[in-house]
């Protein structure tokens, strides 16, 4: 599909706002997984801005496409996207990790409109998405299920159980997008437990695989517009990304897995990135 330049611009704007909101929320709260949110911002922007069908006024609309953030720690990006798409008022973003039992905790929960599954413990999302995809086929619905997993997350064995079974059940309405930012909590994935050759792994499990640049909006849009990649197979999209993307000093740095800006750092870059005032009420 060829997206026009106007659409491209609007998706880029959406992604940019996701990054700004993620930085804003996490700095205000003094906590959050900023790096892992910045690496998926472009993918989330394309999913919510172009690919998925949903109705923010009716979050349980039976025909909606489903999205599961299996790497739940990347939720800053999801929260911003849901607010921008009208699931709730933007002012709610100020609640991120800012009050007891908040609707926007450090990992997403279903009490927030638009969140489809509780995630945060890694290796759960594909199986849940698989169940939704099977339920969709059983009910003769044509919705799709999109799951974003981390790359380090794929070290959890439960993902591969589900990957094997999803291919067996020919779930071509299931899409897994791997946020291949090459870093996990402690180090580069390849220094901890090697994932490569990752595309071959998915291929050998019976999935249709595509490797893309996870920050190229046009490329993300193109590939997500051609789901299923192969009829009768679930789709695995390995999105090559940069952890901390957009914050030059944080990019590709292991410590930015679970780190946030200080208020001083925020104010230093505020004008350059045209960020909002931190403003506490």
């Amino acid at each position: 599909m060829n997206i026009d330049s106007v659409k491209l611009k609007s998706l880029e704007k959406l992604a940019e706002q996701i990054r700004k909101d993620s930085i804003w929320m996490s700095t205000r709260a003094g906590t959050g997984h900023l790096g892992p949110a910045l690496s998926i911002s472009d993918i989330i922007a394309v999913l919510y801005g172009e690919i998925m069908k949903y109705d923010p006024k009716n979050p349980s609309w039976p025909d909606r496409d489903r999205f599961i953030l299996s790497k739940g720690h990347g939720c800053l990006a999801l929260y911003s996207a849901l607010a921008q798409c009208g699931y709730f008022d933007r002012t709610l973003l100020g609640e991120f990790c800012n009050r007891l039992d908040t609707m926007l905790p450090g990992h997403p929960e279903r009490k927030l409109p638009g969140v489809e599954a509780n995630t945060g413990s890694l290796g759960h999302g594909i199986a849940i998405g698989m169940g939704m995809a099977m339920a969709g086929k059983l009910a003769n619905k044509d919705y799709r299920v999109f799951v974003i997993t981390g790359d380090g997350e794929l070290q959890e064995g439960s993902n591969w159980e589900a990957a094997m079974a999803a291919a067996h059940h020919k779930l071509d309405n299931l899409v897994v997008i791997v946020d291949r930012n090459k870093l996990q909590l402690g180090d580069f994935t390849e220094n901890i437990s090697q994932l490569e050759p990752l595309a071959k792994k998915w291929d050998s499990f019976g999935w249709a695989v595509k490797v893309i640049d996870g920050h190229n909006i046009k490329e993300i849009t193109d590939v997500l517009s051609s789901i299923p990649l192969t009829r009768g197979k679930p789709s695995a999209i390995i999105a090559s990304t940069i952890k901390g993307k957009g914050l030059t000093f944080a990019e590709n740095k292991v410590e930015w897995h679970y780190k946030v800006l200080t208020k001083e750092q925020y104010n230093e870059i505020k004008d350059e990135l045209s960020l909002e005032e931190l403003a506490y009420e």
Partner: protein
Amino acid sequence: MSEKQKKSTRVAFAEALLEVGRVNSKIVTIAADSQSRYGQFVKEFPERSFNVGIAEQTMVGVASGFALSGYIPVVTSYANFLAFRAIEQIRVDVATEKLNVKMVGTDTGFSSQWLGFTHLALEDMAAISALPNIVIIDPADAVEAFEATKAIFDYEGPVYMRIRGRKEEPILPIKSRKFEIGKAQVLKPGKDILIIACGSSVYDSLQAAEILKDKNIDAMVVNMATIRPIDEKTLLDLIPSFTKVMTVESHNIRGGLGSTIAEFISERGINTQLLRMGVKERFGMAGSDEMLKQAFSLDGPGIARSAEKFLNEKFGR
């Protein structure tokens, strides 16, 4: 007690599943290479039967996806592999959201017999009961397993039901067979000691009561098929009339019936003494169920011996 009528709890579960599945098209079965436990349902409703392979975590995750899409999924496996291998999926995916998933652990207590400690499920209720929101049921016999299966599909929310193996077990001489979640049933009146039992131990407790009768000990036997929510009303009605109360379960004494009753008695400040019969501080081992029950003093004579000794113990210090 007549032992003419016998039936396996596993067969009864499958029969009830078929019955409710015929009426309610939202019911789907998810198996982890455990499809045989669903019996005829799979043959009659292949489109509503899914097998994910030997992958209990995926089974529970997939069931959650179905529940979140408006279906009523059932999952089943050997109780240990369901309650332990998939415990984190049960916790994060099912229990937090009170999803309408029916979890059936099979081959519980001693019914795995010669398969040894890996398969003998003696701590499954303890694992599940650590998590909020899940109803826990341990039916006494096949008729109760049948009725309980129907009842859990009328209830909206997560349920863990523990049943046993293929082996045929005696049908108990119980008059009223109406099953209500959270309702205990007095099976035999008595005044000297109160025996509260669940699951396969109900049969053995009734046997024990017969033995005790010959020794002029009049034991009351209560079937506590629902471990959570516990029937507080019946407990409050009965326990204060006894100075000696026993619990009997084919399970570890922690995290199942015994613990629940101990918590109830101590927190209510009821002046009575409790003896918990079950497995204590150890795993199971290979053996026939008769051998195992005998070894753990959980057969009729073993329970009767313990009751007699307990009655002769001086109350308090």
